């Protein structure tokens, strides 16, 4: 997989005046990977990309591309191409001129440019539309033109800044697969920015989860989803139920948590925190809605939770039960719809059970905003 050119961020700091936009980021991106930065709006994702593409000088630390320090090398000299958050297609140039702008810079003839443009237009499934102006294309088509324009520059690293955010859901899902296919075809490193965790999970080889300038966790989709390193990562990626409490006893990779509402519960300590949690530490336990199952009424123990049902909904593939949860937040449970009968529990207390390996413990921390 390491055929392409990798990117490393070493102790990267970026400040705007007193404001720290990126704090001590350390990331290794393998050549040929599809790597995503995932985080809420304003957490510094674009800032990192701009540092990689050369529009921002780091306030501290280094950016390495293919092992070379990029200090003092301008954006036009770096082997990167950036797809801007707002695309930034040249409005006065035709589509084919837009796509082959990088060739025009190098002095290629119009014939060569047209030929290359036609190849790329075929690749992005817009054959014969080179004569249009960007304003005459649909949003999704513009998206693809921006991708073609970046690819035409034959970069070693393609940087994509939320390129799908402006599209509607259908088109976004379609473009996800298309992007992934393009990446596998051209085999170059993609660095992808998104605040949509679904996008990150489906497309990426590796994901960095960011929060307010800090990288919380780096790992592949499964690790991020199943084995979050921080409370923020656990609550930001996918739906999760939180139980606040204190560590009562550590038992190897597991721990017994004294929760505020639901008694003592046992769960797995997430890998990043194993060996680091002691008795008495404030802790948070996370259990996904789909990790619960209904248990016989009144069952007690360290993997049973009892609470009152607020309301229920039927989602087609699942029944959702919303119960009184911790810290004013509702506890959500999803029971897969396998055709079983399903009675209404609204207003009643019900008991749930989970498997210890499906519940993770992380140190108490900031949660992602809803």
């Amino acid at each position, binding site marked *: 997989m390491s055929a392409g050119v990798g990117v490393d961020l070493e102790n990267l700091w970026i400040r705007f005046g007193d404001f720290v936009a990126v704090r001590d980021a350390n990331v290794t991106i393998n050549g040929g990977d599809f790597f995503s930065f995932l985080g809420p709006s304003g957490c510094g994702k674009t800032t990192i990309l701009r540092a990689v593409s050369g*529009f921002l000088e780091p306030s501290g630390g280094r950016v390495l591309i293919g092992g070379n320090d990029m200090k003092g090398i*301008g954006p036009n000299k770096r082997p990167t191409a950036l797809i801007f958050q707002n695309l*930034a297609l040249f409005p006065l140039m035709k589509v084919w001129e837009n796509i082959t702008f990088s060739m025009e810079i*190098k002095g290629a003839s119009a014939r060569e440019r047209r030929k290359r443009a036609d190849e790329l237009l075929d690749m992005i499934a817009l054959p014969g539309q080179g004569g249009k102006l960007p304003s005459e294309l649909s949003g999704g088509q513009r998206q693809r033109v921006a991708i073609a324009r970046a690819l035409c520059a034959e970069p070693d690293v393609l940087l994509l800044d939320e390129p799908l955010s402006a599209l509607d859901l259908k088109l976004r899902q379609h473009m996800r697969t298309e992007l992934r296919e393009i990446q596998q075809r051209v085999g170059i490193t993609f660095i992808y920015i998104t605040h949509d965790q679904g996008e990150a999970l489906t497309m990426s080889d590796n994901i960095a989860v960011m929060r307010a300038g800090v990288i919380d966790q780096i790992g592949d989709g499964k690790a991020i989803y199943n084995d979050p390193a921080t409370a923020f990562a656990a609550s930001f990626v996918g739906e999760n139920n939180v139980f606040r409490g204190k560590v009562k006893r550590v038992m190897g990779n597991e721990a017994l948590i004294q929760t505020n509402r639901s008694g003592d519960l046992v769960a797995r300590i997430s890998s990043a925190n194993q060996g680091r949690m002691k008795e008495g530490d404030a802790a948070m336990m996370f259990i996904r809605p789909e990790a619960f199952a209904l248990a016989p009424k009144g069952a007690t123990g360290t993997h049973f939770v009892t609470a009152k049902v607020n309301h229920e909904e039927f989602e087609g593939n699942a029944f959702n039960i919303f119960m009184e949860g911790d810290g004013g937040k509702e506890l959500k449970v999803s029971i897969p719809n396998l055709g079983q009968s399903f009675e209404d529990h609204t207003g009643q207390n019900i008991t749930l059970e989970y498997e210890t390996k499906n519940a993770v413990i992380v140190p108490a921390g900031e949660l992602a905003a809803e």
Partner: protein
Amino acid sequence: MKRFTFMRLSLWIYLGVFFAYLLGPLVIMSATAFNSPAFPRMTPWECLTFEWFGALFRDERILNGIWNSILVGAGTVVLSVAMGLAGALMLTQIWPKLRATYYTIIIAPILIPGVVLGISTLVFWDRINRMLGLGADSWLSNGLFLTIIGQSTFIASYCMLVLVARLQRYDMALTEAALDLGATHAQAFRKVLLPFMRPAIASAAVLAFLASFENYNTTTFTFGEYPTLTIELAQKVRYGITPAISALAFIIVVLTVIAALANEASLRRKELVAAARQKATVAELESGRLQLPGFFRSNWAAAALVAVACVTVAVAGTAALYSPAQCIADVQEQKRLEAEQRIQELLRQRELRRQEQLDQQGEAVPAPAAPSGSSSGFGGAFAPGNLSGSSEAEPEAEQEPQGNSSGFGNVFDPNALSGGSEGGGAGD
């Protein structure tokens, strides 16, 4: 309902008055260019003539002035647009806290009186000229350079205002995208920013040229050996004006109208093409068989442009063939006749008066101040008896036919003076 129509009516009247106020002087001035009298006037209309256009094009000083104005205008356009663009770019790049101050400074020349700019330009560059040890006729002080520099000081600010308006709509990400794709800063500027700015640059250039062309108060200090058209006109007017100046005004008005129509026509054309492209299907665009609307379809400006051009050509053609000599000869003949008639009349009156005086003398009552010199060309004009006597007393006063019809007014009519009217001076 009634109120509504009343409102409407007053609106139309207002518009009429407004446009008459705006365009009336231009129309009248243009008309005087075609009338034969040597002083520009519309009434009385004597003969249609194109002579004043000929006179204009034979006037070396005017032609030279036009040429100098074009030279100065071209220089000012280049300098002002370049400085304006630099200023506008600076404004968008500068540290935000300094922006307001910078803006004030760069706008200030517009607020400074042109006279001050002219004097200061002259003084400043004269100093520099002397510091460099150059003579009075060096390129630095011979007028062309000074005028361009002097005018650009404030025209550049106008240009900057025009350019800033467009630049504010520019997405800096476009420049970044160009850089990211490997362009140098110069390439990004030339291939991305400049094409985007082109319409505003064209507007700024036109504005700069017009402002330069019409400038007088700065230029008057700096023109040196290069008097521009406005300077020449001002100097000419001091010695009296001729309809040749009206002819020049007419030409400028026509050129302006044609330029405005051409601009409007091309704008509309672009809009129509854009609309057609927007509606076109992919297949049409691909095959290049897209039916673009014809140049004249729903484009009134284009039609008007062609009409004006046709009329201009027709008028020029007529002018080449038409000779007002006959008409002018007729008018002169008529004037001669009228003058003769006047003289006859005068003589007759004098005769009459003498008769009267003789009659009075016959009654042996000598008039206290009997005009003895009644043989003078002024007739009885200076006779106090005439002045004191009311004009109605003279039977001829009523008979005087169309005393004001001739260009010479009532100069030859001594009665006019007695009436105390200003009519006698009108023919001056």
